């Protein structure tokens, strides 16, 4: 074994010992991914399970009753009140007791029977545009169903256009199916980047870094010795979340583990590289923590996890080229749900490799420049 490799192995072993012997760092490595994937798995969903709504039914006809019973029978809409006056609408919306108020005109049934368009007025609470939009979408599909049934029941011709949807890879369009695989990358990046940035800063603060630097270790050997254990820890975290996704949330994994772990390996190399880069600049643990946060927050929010990258302003889109998380989200989802292969994922693998190599060699260079 070459002396260099021998030293690197010694450092890797020391890093593992240091992390695993300390009950606090053991806790920090394993508990948060489990807790967070459980919490986000249940809580962070774009699906609306209940839509509280109120009705101002001025028609009081069979048709209006049919429409309302369709709403109530949908399992999503929960009728909170039957209003008497128009001015009641604002009370219910303002107090957030109803997301939607449905107003049905007096001549609702008369117009329907006459074959003309009848109107149902819907007042939505626009203060929360996402929720309102989703609720309106649900309402639209209920109304579509009503329309189709009314026409066939009154021997009127069907609508000229009908959408037939087939959602691939996620047949029920369950947002959990895309959220939980995304957590693999997101939670792992937060953990490893922080851990790596702090591991060097801690050594600096405790004076052990100087002790390390007076031994024959070369800067790049310290880099590798610090990177490998943190990558392994990151892979352990990813695996934990993957297991939770499959065995707790029962989201079927259709892809190849080889492709997935190859991608995660590259992603962790990039995340650890960024962590080491931070620690080559930071002098104290406090600085390292601040810098790491400065990177992690925008990277997580602008990764495409919650809002699509394509809807961001141009300059941010080009800035996010250096965000390893966006590639990781893309590749985990695509392998997990779609069984994408190496060739399809090249646009993710390539940038991750570049980010990893640049940050790792950059921080090795920064470390050695500090010393000479």
């Amino acid at each position, binding site marked *: 074994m070459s002396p260099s490799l021998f030293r690197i192995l010694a450092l890797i072993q*020391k890093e593992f010992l*240091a992390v695993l012997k300390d009950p606090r760092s053991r806790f920090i490595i394993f508990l948060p991914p489990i807790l967070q994937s459980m919490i986000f798995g249940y809580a962070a969903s774009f699906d609306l399970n209940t839509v509280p709504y109120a009705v101002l039914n001025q028609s009081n006809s069979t048709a209006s009753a049919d429409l309302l019973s369709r709403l109530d029978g949908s399992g999503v809409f929960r009728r909170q009140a039957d209003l008497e006056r128009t001015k009641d609408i604002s009370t219910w919306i303002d107090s957030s007791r109803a997301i939607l108020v449905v107003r049905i005109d007096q001549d609702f049934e008369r117009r329907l029977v006459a074959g003309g368009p009848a109107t149902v007025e819907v007042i939505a609470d626009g203060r929360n545009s996402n929720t309102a939009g989703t609720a309106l979408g649900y309402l639209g599909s209920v109304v579509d169903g009503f329309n189709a049934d009314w026409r066939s029941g009154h021997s009127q011709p069907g609508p000229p256009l009908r959408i037939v949807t087939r959602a691939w890879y996620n047949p029920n369009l369950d947002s959990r199916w895309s959220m939980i695989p995304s957590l693999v990358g997101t939670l792992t990046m937060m953990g490893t980047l922080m851990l790596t940035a702090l591991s060097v800063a801690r050594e600096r603060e405790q004076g*052990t870094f100087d002790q390390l630097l007076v031994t024959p270790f070369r800067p790049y050997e310290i880099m590798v010795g610090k990177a490998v254990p943190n990558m392994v820890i990151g892979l352990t975290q990813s695996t934990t979340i993957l297991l939770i996704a499959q065995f707790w949330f029962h989201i079927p994994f259709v892809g190849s583990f080889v492709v997935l772990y190859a991608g995660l390996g590259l992603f962790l190399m990039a995340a650890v590289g960024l962590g080491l880069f931070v620690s080559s600049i930071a002098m104290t643990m406090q600085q390292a923590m601040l810098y790491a946060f400065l990177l992690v927050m925008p990277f997580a929010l602008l990764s495409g996890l919650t809002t699509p990258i394509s809807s961001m302003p141009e300059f941010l889109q080009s800035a996010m080229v250096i965000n390893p998380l966006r590639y990781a989200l893309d590749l985990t989802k695509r392998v997990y749900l779609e069984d994408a292969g190496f060739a399809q994922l090249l646009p993710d693998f390539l940038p991750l490799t570049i980010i990893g190599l640049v940050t790792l060699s950059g921080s090795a260079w920064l470390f050695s420049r500090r*010393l000479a």
Partner: protein
Amino acid sequence: MTTSASSPALRLDGVSKSFRRETGESVLALDNISFSLDQGGLAALVGPDGAGKTTLIRLLTGLMKADRGVVSVLGIDPAKNPQAIQSRISYMPQRFGLYDDLTVRENLDLYADMHGVTADDKRTQYARLMEMTGLESFQKRLAGKLSGGMKQKLGLACTLVRSPELLLLDEPTVGVDPLSRRELWEIIRSLVKEGMTVLISSSFLDEAEACERVLVLDEGKKLAEGPPADVSSLALSRTYVLQPPDGMKPRDFQARLLADPDVVDAVPESGHVRLVSQAVSGRSGPAYFGGVLAQPTAARFEDGFMVLLQQTGGAKPNPSEEPQPEEALGGSRDDSMVEVHDLDRRFGKFVAVDHASFNVKRGEIFGLLGPNGAGKTTTFRMLCGLLPPSGGSLKVAGVDVRQASASARQHLGYVAQRFSLYGQLSVGENLAFFARAYGLRGKKKSERIAWALNQFKLEPFVRLPSAQLPGGFKQRLAMAASLLHRPEILFLDEPTSGADPFARREFWQRITVLAAGGVTVIVTTHFMAEAEYCDRAAILDNGKVLAQGTPAELRAHAPAEAGHIATMEDAFIAIVVDARSKEAAEHGERES
């Protein structure tokens, strides 16, 4: 309140205080301590690090509560009424909170305003403090730019912005140069003369001698209490000075004498060896130790302290446990191991090391002496390749550390001032890691680790996380780790700071053995007396090498005084005073 002149300013009766370590076990910081100090008195609290000095002072200020016993300060229980106490006493902690980015004057103003000193009082008080501390001409200087000694004086001035009835000083002289140390003591004495009561803690034993009363603590226990002469008298008629035999270094002679069971303590001093014997000298004629006639001399506080430590079960380095010399390293004693020429280091405008030059030969013990901020650690970091120099040349083991770093570092051993091994890892794991870091494997590795554990008596602690080692053993572990690969050069940064006298003797014994085996040792210290153990030493102040040479050559700088053998401290003061007056003269010439 009734505080008549006869009632003591402070009184402790059976006070105990324990702490819980992070690891769970509890540590008794103070064990049943009783002590009292009269109004207007000056008392010293002495003992090594971890003796309980700071805990005792903090109990007096009301910052901590005693577990058991009675604490009374100016007739008040500080734990019950901390506000009442804190408005009548002043406390200067070990690290006084000066604001580096404020000027001397602004720092004073800040503390005066915090204590609500009126403008009138400020005027009279400032004039007095400025005169006392000699900071008058530095009022506009940033506190961060002051030397260590001046910082302590400013700290003292800040605690004195209002005249307290009781002044508590926690190690105000640690890391301060001997000259500033003397000046600080003059200030303290003048305060006592004005009627202030002062309690000062110190790990310098000679400072106890200047006080009326001392309380000697060790590991939370009271070893002695009373006038310092009581302690000194323990070594009465047992203290001698010996001239080493021809051609023998004082430190080698001292090591030989220490092995003698009749000897309580031996230290090299001014080219001789100072010795405390087990037996009181009788009328049976002159005493001989190591075959050399011993000249009786007056006992000092430290001599008595060593007797006291021994009586209470302190461990004198056991001769049978003496460090065993190893097979000598190769190479000639004439090899130059460290060559420093015109070495410079600046941080911005600040010059930390100013054109330093020195050479160290193989097997020499070379000391870098100076107060905090003199540039010792900066020089050290450059020698070890941890900091690039701004100018000059620097060769270690024949190579430029920066050019061939990895291979050059294989020959170095480095022990930092602060314990800097991995605290969570056990003693064994730390040794194993550093052995592998230096490329030791297989049988060689286990042999060297076994050697280190045995030499440094670390076997009982192999599985203990190193952070939990008792203070002295941490330092041993750090040394063990730095010696695993048999370095040719060993760098030791302030290895004896805060250690008890026994640990210091033992440390120097190891160093002596190492040097005899051909290891070149470079060591920094702010204990001037420790230069006596060195073959050669350099005196640093404000980044400049003011003088260098053998201990005898350095001592020759001190003015000759009849009936007094110059000490290293006298020499240091003479050299620094001389250098500063020269600089002032040059400065004057340039200005005119």
